[in-house]
């Protein structure tokens, strides 16, 4: 043991290697390799009858995506829904987290924290299915209580996705607010700033990375979802649905379509990295 310790002490590079080798293999070789394999698959073709993949390079899938309008529509629709969900969730996460972190008494804070995190342990599928029964245009609960219902479609999809990912948005924002010292807020007040000004000039800038971190979850989870949209979206298709439906039928096309949300998220993440949000996840 001591000999090994001495060796490691004297050879920092060896220490680094020991630390890095396992994660590197896992992440770079396995995961990034898999992503690269996906990229390559997107160039392959499908045998029309047997459904087998023909491993020849070609741009046919990309031509298909470019020329047939449905793919554009689906991408735009999905991005809009993901954006709406993100805006809703962050708009809700900020006041709720503020309440939890700064206003609530320690006991209330503890209870509410649990109340907000426990839903993460309730099955996503069951929650989504429950929403389906709620928004059902025939005899759903919402119709019974309020007389109107968002029905099965884009509106319900947005609502349900916002519902499902809200805890993921609250967690980083709450953590960010916890780290915000009260003294900063008091100082701002001492300098004459009332609540809104303090909020705008002190809280939000400090929360920036946390907000971005929260948005990564809500945006990404919405971009790829196909289960919730199938349950409450009626006839709606989103990117996730197209990828999933085609995965079984036409793998190369599915791979090609999946490159779109991948590219979008990569750009988003590279931007988010600048804000330091990635460490808040």
């Amino acid at each position, binding site marked *: 043991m001591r000999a090994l310790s001495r060796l490691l002490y004297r050879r920092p590079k060896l220490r680094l290697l020991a630390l890095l080798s396992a994660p590197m293999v896992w992440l770079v070789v396995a995961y990034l*390799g898999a992503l690269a394999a996906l990229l*390559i698959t997107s160039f392959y073709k499908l045998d*029309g*009858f047997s*459904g087998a993949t023909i491993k020849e390079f070609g741009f046919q899938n990309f031509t298909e995506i470019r020329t047939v309008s449905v793919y554009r529509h689906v991408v735009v629709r999905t991005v809009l829904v993901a954006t709406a969900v993100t805006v809703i969730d962050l708009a809700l996460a900020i006041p709720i987290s503020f309440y939890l972190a700064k206003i609530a008494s320690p006991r209330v804070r503890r209870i509410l924290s649990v109340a907000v995190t426990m839903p993460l342990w309730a099955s996503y599928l069951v929650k989504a299915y429950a929403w389906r029964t709620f928004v059902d245009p025939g005899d759903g609960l919402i119709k019974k209580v309020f007389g109107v219902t968002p029905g099965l479609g884009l509106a319900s999809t947005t609502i349900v996705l916002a519902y499902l990912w809200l805890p993921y948005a609250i967690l980083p924002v709450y953590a960010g607010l916890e780290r915000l010292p009260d003294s900063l807020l008091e100082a701002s007040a001492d300098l004459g700033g009332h609540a809104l000004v303090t909020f705008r000039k002190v809280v939000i800038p400090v929360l920036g990375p946390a907000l971005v971190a929260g948005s990564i979850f809500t945006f990404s989870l919405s971009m790829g979802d196909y289960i919730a949209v199938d349950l409450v979206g009626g006839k709606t298709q989103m990117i996730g649905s197209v990828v*999933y*439906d*085609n995965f*079984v039928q036409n793998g190369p096309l599915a791979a090609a379509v999946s490159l779109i949300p991948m590219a979008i998220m990569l750009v988003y993440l590279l931007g988010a990295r600048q804000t330091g949000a990635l460490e808040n996840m």
Partner: protein
Amino acid sequence: MKKTTIKTIGIAAVLAFTLNACGGSSSAPSSEAPSSEVPSTEAAADAPADAPAEGNEAAAGVSAPDLPMATEVGTGEGQVNVVAWPGYTEKDWVDPFTTASGCKVNVKVGNTSDEMVALMQTGEYDLVSASGDASLRLIASGEVAPVNTALLSNYADVYDSLKNKAWNSVGDKSYGVPHGRGANLLMYRTDKFTTPPDSWSVVWAADSTAKGSVTAYDAPIYIADAAVYLMSTNPELGIKNPYALDKTQFAAAVELLKGQKGLVSEYWSDYLKQQAAFKSGTMTAGTSWQVVANAAKAEGTPVDVVLPKEGSTGWSDTWMVSSKSKNPNCAYMWMNYIISPEGNALATEYFGEAPSNQKACALTKDKNHCTTFHAGDEEYFSKIWYWTTPTKECLDGRGPICVEFAEWNKAWTELKG
């Protein structure tokens, strides 16, 4: 930093390329898709209409790889892994099988043919209850092995009209045993349609009373249902087989479907969802299966089913054995059981389809079961177009001018918008 990323990606790409190159023979991207919404295109490979006579040739253009078939059934391996339609493997008949054979049945439910094909391609399953559109694909790609029907004592009692059909045999080699057969029916709410509808116009016509609450099967194969309707309403199109559509006929079917979209509340492939939707009234008319109607009625929903006058698409599922099966003995035991009078009666009565074994009719609890489902009624089934994989080589013999399955799939995605 940029250099690092590029280098990393480069290494990963090279690795990936090597992996791809080294990977075995072409494999379709099958996955353990969850048994939910992927539409299945179950195509019976048979050209209906004058079915019985024509049925014995394999669909044009299908060649099956030469695979060995079992020569004897030994002792059971203790378990068998099955891909099945929902409702095909319920405890009522699975448990007696397990007790008698010692084979535990592990079921993976597939909601659509495409899911099932994908699952079989993983090589992890022994048996699949394949509909006609899946079966030919499985045969052509070598996923399933020929079945030695001589080893199955109950095969003799199977209706002749179901043996060695175009969708489950190549040449004189049989690739499986039939589970039963049935039609896709029009299900409707009896409180909305006080006179039972007799035509599919309920789901196609722009002025339908069910506008806004129509449902359709969420799978590319449903295009054939549009074609079936066009065969009646637009005979000038010259459609002889709804799975053999040339470009003009295909375009017409897609147009019809686009029009239908405005009438549809939801497409379905998960039958629990359909059941719930009929109960709540979100859906009031559309294509469904007898088993769903039975379940809905049991729940108290006022529904009924009818076979409209234009005829319909249907299915006849074949139990097929994987060429990579790890439990072939249990697989053969299951096949023999499911076509036995006892097993077949239980299974087909539950699901609501015509049995494949003539002797099952005497054993159903409802003595009218076989009459209701037209078991052995070849005239009835002549109006049913069994699910079949559309191929480029037209199934009605017109030559290589038809739209093939991959295009049906793309059209379906495009249609849903």
